[in-house]
């Protein structure tokens, strides 16, 4: 499969340039842009993502004036005062800074969901960096319908504080790559948890309410022997186990195990994540046959750059060819268009009256 460097060599042959007008780094930048745009515009790559609801996170709150002595993770709920005099972590601090008698504040907790029904800020679920857009969300395998904040505000309640099984999701009031659910799940239902004195490394055994049996390969191995090596595949007659980034081979160690039972399951479109493509890289998120459109993107951008080397006609031509690739990946992703039911040819549905016969103008008038 051609690498990024091979594709850039091809584009340089068409640019008739060996880096004088268009440095290699510039072409590589265009290639990365094209890769990102191809996936973002076509929504071609999607994956399942599981978020625990409510999440169990390592929480270490601190304010800038009192940093943690051991240098751990800091998290702040920043609230701005009216005068913009600083950032605050609790509502009473805003009131205090503005000279308003503060209302009783909340006690410190380690997990936010302990405070559901008393939250001062909206409860946000954060999405990973590679996230582009949400295609669907389910909680405990039940689909959540999307609502806007405006529609939820029509309830005229502190809806972000209400606890229960989620029914709706909303982009919320937070940043991009975050969403909220309504109502909030309050009871934690963790899927898999690492156990043991030192819960790191890789899993050796799995236990729980279900029965897990080790099968060593090659087949015929002793099932009672201690499980050595790495777990490579899980198979069950009742459920399916998937790796999150399915476009990569499941190599390496499984670091996190999640279950969609009682959790949020998100069907999301993704774009390339760090690290960025280099010359020796091979784009993994697109079919091999579509990388040619990335070359067209590079040519379109190169010819469109103002200055020496600008060629408007060629820039437009390659831009049109690149857009065709985006549409193709859109169609390939939306597979159901190709499996259509044929229908009979439509008959002549229009009703037409036969034209009335017209007599010549000089014809004598008829007397009936």
């Amino acid at each position: 499969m051609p690498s990024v460097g091979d594709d850039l060599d091809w584009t340089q042959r068409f640019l008739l340039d060996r880096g004088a007008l268009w440095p290699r780094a510039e072409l590589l930048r265009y290639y990365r842009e094209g890769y990102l745009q191809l996936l973002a515009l076509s929504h071609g790559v999607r994956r399942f993502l599981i978020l625990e609801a409510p999440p169990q996170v390592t929480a270490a709150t601190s304010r800038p004036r009192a940093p943690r002595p051991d240098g751990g993770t800091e998290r702040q709920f920043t609230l701005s005062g009216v005068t913009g005099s600083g950032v605050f972590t609790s509502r009473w601090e805003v009131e205090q800074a503005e000279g308003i008698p503060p209302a009783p504040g909340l006690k410190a907790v380690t997990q936010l969901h302990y405070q559901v029904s008393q939250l001062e800020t909206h409860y946000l679920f954060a999405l990973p960096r590679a996230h582009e857009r949400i295609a669907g969300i389910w909680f405990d395998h039940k689909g959540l319908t999307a609502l806007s904040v405006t529609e939820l505000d029509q309830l005229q309640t502190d809806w972000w504080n209400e606890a229960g099984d989620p029914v709706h999701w909303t982009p919320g009031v937070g940043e991009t790559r975050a969403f909220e659910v309504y109502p909030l799940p309050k009871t934690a239902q963790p899927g898999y948890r690492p156990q043991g004195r030192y819960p790191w490394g890789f899993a050796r055994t799995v236990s729980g309410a279900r029965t897990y049996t080790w099968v060593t390969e090659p087949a015929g191995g002793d099932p009672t022997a201690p499980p050595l090596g790495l777990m490579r595949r899980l198979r069950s007659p009742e459920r399916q186990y998937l790796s999150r980034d399915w476009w990569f081979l499941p190599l390496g160690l499984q670091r996190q195990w999640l279950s969609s039972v009682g959790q949020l399951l998100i069907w999301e479109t993704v774009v390339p994540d760090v690290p960025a493509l280099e010359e020796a890289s091979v784009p993994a998120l697109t079919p091999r046959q579509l990388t040619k459109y990335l070359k067209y993107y590079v040519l379109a951008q190169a010819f469109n750059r103002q200055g020496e080397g600008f060629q408007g006609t060629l820039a437009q031509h390659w831009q049109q060819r690149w857009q065709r690739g985006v549409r193709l990946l859109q169609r390939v992703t939306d597979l159901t268009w190709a499996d259509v039911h044929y229908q009979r040819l439509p008959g002549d549905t229009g009703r037409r009256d036969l034209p009335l016969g017209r007599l010549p103008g000089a014809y004598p008038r008829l007397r009936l």
Partner: protein
Amino acid sequence: MATRATLRARVLEQLHDSPSSPVYWSPAEIDQALDEAHELLTEEVRAHRATVYVPKRDGTAYYDLLALEPNAMCPVRIWDAEQQRRLTPITMRLLDRQEARWMTQHSSWPLCWYPLGWGRFGVHPATAQGGGVFRVDLLLWPEPLAEDDDEPDLPDPDQEALVEYATYLGLLKQRLVPFALERYGRFVQGWKDAQARADIRRLQSRVWQRERSGDRAIRR
């Protein structure tokens, strides 16, 4: 039927270069252009198809086609061999509207399939009992031509389009833009002709009916 060698020679002739010892273009460049043309034509015409058999596994809802056919573009028809039934295409949104917890349902008789992105599809209900196969008809990209005596998997009339495209790329490199765009136009016309040829096979699936125009009463 033309081979890669004959197609390459024709392209070099069109570009006024020596077919036997080219000066301005390497054989590898022309071969790459021919492969690219073959891919583009296949993407537009969508006539390159194959069938794979996907074994049904118990507890499995999601199937990966790329492990079976690396050149898979997308499935167009999924047939359950045991039921002798064609699965209905559907989307996950529609399934959400029809059933609350459709993801947890299992059955020995899947009814429909839904896309999960390129190269993957899901079936609903998920397979409860393994055994048997899905017959999946796919659209494919072509394999690159590896040897000089390889022949492109296209009808003879469509192979001319490959020459037009490779010539177009060669003219672009020479910065003969108007001539190159003219060749590209011919390539586009070629794929439209090829689509028409492929559509004839689709028309054969239609159910013809009598014309209705002879049945209506004459109205004054």
